[in-house]
């Protein structure tokens, strides 16, 4: 079934973690630094096995702090890079996720979520790091986070994460979960030439001094790798277009606003990505993401069988949050239900975006299990009364 010895193609029966690794390789990832942690370990293990075959480098670092920094370094070496972890390691990466954001370093961080807080439930599912994905590092920023709901999407969205990270020059998060990571399903990998691969805008050598943070109109600056002769200085301090530290409010304003705007500007277009199910005439709408969508899908089917006009929006990109989409739905729906494997995170965003236009109810469970479809059906039914 394998056509190239390097990047896989064709149909495979593989688990989500493996599919994630293959998606990264297909996207051109050639550097992986990581530290084992359940339930993300299989991503590292697959990378360890496969990197040699594709001519890349795998390294197991001493911890997650090191892993995050190593992928930043590799990215500045001109190589697409990734790390993968779960809650505790994700928390440890927060400081240097900020460094990647501040220095506009393309890279991908996968969080295969398990139950928390703390060590919590290492082997069981959670979706409790969704707000952390947005707010976990100090300082202001916007970030992009994708939420796969199957091994196939672990492949697709990891590849997409690389494309977005290269496009927008920032770390992109794949917010998976234990069930998706550990479940095995058919994964179809298209031929190489059918894959859309995005690469960062490269700096073009010229006589002018390189201004590493002079952005183009799309708000994204071209990027030089270290070693290419651009003699650039990169810092996590607030910096100007030259990359030089500038310790004042004006430099901060220009920089931070651009970092934020380069995401917000595309929030309604390129960065809105979702699946709509039975939405044409839906009266009760379920908004969900990730593995929970598979309980919800069943619930919507059962509800429809019972003649209830239920619909579902499954977000594939949760951050930036699609305010406009929710606003639109809230204006039409009788109620919105947001089941999550957490005590109410994204539901707050939905509430905010709905702005009181329709009731928005959470269905919180704190991890360790998925929602039973029947519970959701019951909730839908209640809302229709």
């Amino acid at each position: 079934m394998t056509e190239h010895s390097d990047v896989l193609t064709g149909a495979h029966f593989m688990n989500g973690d493996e599919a994630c690794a293959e998606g990264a390789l297909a996207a051109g990832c050639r550097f992986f630094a990581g530290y084992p942690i359940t339930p993300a370990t299989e991503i590292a293990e697959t990378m360890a096995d496969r990197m040699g075959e594709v001519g890349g480098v795998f390294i197991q670092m001493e911890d997650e702090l090191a892993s995050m920094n190593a992928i930043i370094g590799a990215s500045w070496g001109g190589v697409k890079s990734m790390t993968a972890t779960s809650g505790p390691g994700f928390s440890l990466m927060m400081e240097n996720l900020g460094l990647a954001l501040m220095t506009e370093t393309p890279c991908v961080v996968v969080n295969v979520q398990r139950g928390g807080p703390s060590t919590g439930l290492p082997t069981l599912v959670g979706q409790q790091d969704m707000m952390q994905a947005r707010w976990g590092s100090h300082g202001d920023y916007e970030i992009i986070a994708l939420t796969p709901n199957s091994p196939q999407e672990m492949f697709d969205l990891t590849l997409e994460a690389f494309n977005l990270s290269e496009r927008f020059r920032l770390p992109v998060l794949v917010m998976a979960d234990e069930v998706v990571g550990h479940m095995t399903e058919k994964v179809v990998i298209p031929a190489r030439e059918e894959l859309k691969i995005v690469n960062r805008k490269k700096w073009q050598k010229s006589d002018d001094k390189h201004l590493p943070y002079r952005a183009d109109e799309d708000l994204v600056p071209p990027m030089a790798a270290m070693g290419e002769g651009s003699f650039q200085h990169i810092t996590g301090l607030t910096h100007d277009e030259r990359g030089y530290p500038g310790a004042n409010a004006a430099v901060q304003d220009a920089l931070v606003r651009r970092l934020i705007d380069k995401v917000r500007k595309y929030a309604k277009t390129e960065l809105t990505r979702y699946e709509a199910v039975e939405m044409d005439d839906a009266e009760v709408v379920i908004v969900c993401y990730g593995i929970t969508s598979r309980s919800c899908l069943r619930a919507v089917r059962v509800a429809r069988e019972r003649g209830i006009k239920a619909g579902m929006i499954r977000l594939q990109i949760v951050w930036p949050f699609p305010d406009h989409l929710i606003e639109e739905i809230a204006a039409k729906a009788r109620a919105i239900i947001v089941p999550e494997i957490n005590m109410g995170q994204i539901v707050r965003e939905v509430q905010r975006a709905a702005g009181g236009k329709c009731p928005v109810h959470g269905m919180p469970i704190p991890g360790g299990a998925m929602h039973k479809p029947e519970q959701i059906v019951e909730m839908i039914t209640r809302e229709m009364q």
Partner: protein
Amino acid sequence: MSAVAQHTFDQFLRADRMPHIWCPGCGIGTAVNCFVHALQKTNLPLEQVAVVSGIGCTARVAGYMYLDSFHSTHGRALPLATGLKLARPELKVVVISGDGDLFAIGGNHFIHAARRNMDLTVICVNNFNYGMTGGQLAPTTPQGARTTTTRQGNPDTPFNLPALAAACGAVYVARWTVGHVVQLQRAMGEVLSKKGFTFLEVISPCPTLFGRLNKLGAGVDMVQAAKERAVIRNGADPKEADITMDSPIVCGKFLDIEKPTYLDRIGLTPTAASE
């Protein structure tokens, strides 16, 4: 930008950022100066040399050199440099940072990079305290010394950096003070042209903080004092190079051996990973 005159070595520097932020009499600049002199002598193509630093007064070096340079976060220069080196093995990656950065918060990365014999050069400017944040205890502060977090005298016992580096697997280990400009320059030349994990400790005065708190006079007095206390013992067992407030400061090249490096062991030839 203000008018600046042209120094012989300005081509290695971001002259438009001079004068730098370091205090009058701070030794960091001297270390940089020696580095630049050494760099010039190695004839390495400048675009093939990258400097990575953490956070601290010393770490600001990255921003003053006209080289590809990365001023990362506190303690994380080494893993970042590791990623860079593995992605672009043809680069000479030099980590220049402070003792607090490399050995307090960054200690774990140091021992692991040394253990792996990762192909990185580490130059640590040791000023016995945290300069950037205002003179606190460092893991190198001699016992009894005053810092702003040990005003009664440091009860802690410090690391002996060369000994730690050697114990963890470095292939080159040396120590000089900024008073030893000739030796320092030579040592910098050596680490620049050696592969594997090389470590150079540079003893440097922080007159503004450590000097003031311990009544050691101006920077120039501190440099002179350190030079006077220096005992050059090339090849000495670095274990014998502990530093107290008044002990001799054992200087010299303690170790210079050959051993397969990380790149050797993973069979990574320059240009393998970078496209």
